[in-house]
């Protein structure tokens, strides 16, 4: 093979001859080679540019779709909020203002009674006897020393004293009555005050709610108009909600794992510890199924209560059916929670049994299974077994948020990836185009000698042609 390249006996001379041959061939095929390089690089550049353009279009399409999804989700959320606010206002109106005519009548009656009582409490001074002036005239006219006059006067004096005492007693009686009436007015005043306070609270609440509705309606209008501000707000909110719901779900998964460990061991007593489905123990699968059924029941409960709206079919059910569904799921949840509590108790017994056996096998002697503080762990395990299913019920709320925001987050990620790919393709395309130019220049460098000669010859030929023309 090596001999094939040896034109002469000398390696250097052969190499030189081959180089000269190559340079000559390259010089002769210079135009074709340059065109080929330019065509190839242009073709690659165009292909990459078209691919980048396609990615850009996909990105724009995805962005538009993501925007639509975001606005639709935001619109739905706002509708729910506004609807809920209206429900609250309706409840307030029905509770407090719905009985307004009755309240008004009560207030009128109370005010009327107060007015009557007030009139009854008017102070009437005791009457002065009408004949006192006649007595004064008799006393002035007659001789005071006259025994008969004195007797008359004393009789009059005694009569006056008695009359005064009666008047005083009567006046006191009237005053007592007035005070009693005034005392009776206090609770009525308080009643009026309480009623007016309730009315004020109700009106304040409605005003507050209406302000809140106004705010939500402004945002709702922005969403309907599809403004950039609304999209930006919804996007930020979606990201925050996604992060928070993911964290809460992670916590719930931790709870589910603890729940699983509570019931997996005793489940082997029920379904056997030796059977397998695939590579998984049947007992583990059974424990997992129980937990998943509990979570499903929790989900249905939340749906029935209209706290979440993952299943429109459940939300659209008649109220009576939803109540039945609520009760049904709650009963199943309670039964499953009780089963879990029982399994947790069984787990403790099994654990103690295994510890006793292990201790016996180690030669420590069988320890007492019962301990003074043992009931604490048993009770704690049972409590956890009972409570965790109910706690896991609430995972439906972050799950709904997670699912709703996941679409947007995935869309955003896809947009970012498409954008990066677009930029990468454009950079690569430009790189290839510039590389083509570089290769052309390097090609010229390789054949610089014949090029220089050709240029000189060309220049001389041009000078000769100009001289001939002159």
């Amino acid at each position, binding site marked *: 093979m090596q001999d094939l390249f040896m034109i002469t006996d000398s390696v250097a001379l052969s190499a030189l001859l081959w180089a000269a041959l190559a340079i000559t061939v390259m010089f002769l095929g210079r135009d074709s080679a340059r065109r080929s390089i330019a065509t190839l690089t242009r073709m690659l550049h165009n292909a990459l540019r078209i691919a980048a353009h396609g990615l850009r279009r996909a990105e724009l399409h995805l962005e538009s779709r993501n925007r639509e999804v975001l606005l639709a989700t935001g619109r739905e959320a706002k509708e729910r909020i506004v609807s809920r606010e209206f429900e609250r206002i309706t409840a307030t109106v029905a509770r407090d203002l719905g009985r307004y005519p009755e309240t008004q009548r009560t207030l009128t009656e109370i005010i009327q009674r107060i007015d009557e009582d007030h009139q009854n409490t008017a102070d009437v001074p005791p009457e002065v006897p009408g004949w006192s002036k006649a007595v004064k005239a008799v006393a002035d006219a007659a001789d005071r020393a006259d025994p008969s006059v004195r007797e008359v006067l004393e009789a009059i004096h005694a009569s006056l004293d008695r009359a005064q005492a009666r008047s005083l007693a009567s006046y006191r009686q009237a005053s007592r009555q007035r005070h009693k009436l005034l005392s009776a007015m206090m609770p009525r005043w308080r009643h009026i005050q309480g009623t007016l306070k309730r009315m004020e609270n109700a009106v304040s609440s409605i005003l507050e709610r209406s302000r809140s509705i106004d705010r939500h309606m402004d945002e709702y209008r922005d969403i309907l108009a599809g403004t950039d501000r609304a999209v930006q707000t919804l996007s930020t909110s979606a990201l925050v909600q996604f992060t928070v719901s993911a964290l809460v779900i992670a916590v719930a998964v931790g709870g589910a794992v603890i729940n699983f460990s509570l019931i997996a*061991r005793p489940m*082997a*007593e029920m379904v*056997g*510890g*030796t*059977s*397998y*489905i*695939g590579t998984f123990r049947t007992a583990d699968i059974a424990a997992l199924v129980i937990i998943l059924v509990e979570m499903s029941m929790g989900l249905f409960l939340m749906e029935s209560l209209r706290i979440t709206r993952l299943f429109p079919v459940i939300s659209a059910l008649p109220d009576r059916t939803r109540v039945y569904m609520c009760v049904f799921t709650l009963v199943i949840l309670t039964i499953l929670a009780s089963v879990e509590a029982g399994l947790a108790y069984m787990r403790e*017994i*099994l654990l103690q*049994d*295994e510890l*006793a*056996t*292990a201790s*016996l*096998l*180690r*030669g420590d002697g069988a320890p007492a299974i019962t301990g003074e503080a043992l009931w604490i762990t048993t009770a704690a395990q049972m409590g956890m077994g009972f409570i965790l299913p109910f706690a896991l019920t609430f995972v439906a709320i972050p799950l709904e948020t997670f699912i709703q925001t996941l679409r947007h987050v995935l869309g955003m990620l896809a947009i970012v990836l498409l954008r990066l790919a677009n930029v990468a393709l454009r950079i690569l395309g430009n790189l290839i185009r510039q590389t083509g130019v570089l290769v052309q220049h390097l090609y010229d460098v390789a054949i610089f000698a014949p090029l220089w000669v050709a240029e000189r010859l060309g220049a001389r030929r041009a000078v000769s042609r100009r001289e001939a023309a002159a």
Partner: protein
Amino acid sequence: MKTPVLLGLALLLTACGGPPTSHATGVYMLLDTSGTYTEEIEKAQQIINFTLSRLEPGDSFAVARIDTGSFSERDIVAKATFDERPSAANVQKRQFQTRIDEFVRTVRPSGYTDISGGLLQALEYLDEKAPRRRTIFIFSDLKEDLQEGYVRDFQLAFTGVDVVALNVTKLRSDNMDPREYLERLASWRQRVEQGGGRWRVINDLDRLEALFQG
């Protein structure tokens, strides 16, 4: 829409309807009761207890003595296939231990040492139980001493079986010529590996964890 549902059902049926595969472990332990090796029997008791503590519901365990003619069910001291319920398995383990305690108290030295017969019996037992993982422990000095008339020079099939020699003590003659000891070990290794099995020796009984490794 129908395709994913059908695929899911097919997967489920494949998982449920496949042939039941055993995940159990089968352990057969041979105890050498010949001559002075009987004195080592308490160490064997520790190993048995450790093994019991490691076995799970559904596993099988048998302990048999090595005597003049070990290819016999009568040499099985205790055997059990543990119940699939953990609580019942614990009760079985305690009963097993009681039987071993009784054996240790009443064991008598045997005249000859038929290790090959014991291994054949162990293989039969494990074949019958068909566990996924098969292990034979040989608690012996591995010095076979057959009575006249007993034929044991044939190949044993150890396919898929772990054979673990435990507490292989050195004899007085080994001390004089250690090659005997090494040749004895090499001979058993060769026999097991030629039969398709895996051979291990564990003399340090402080690290019993290694029994179920590998």
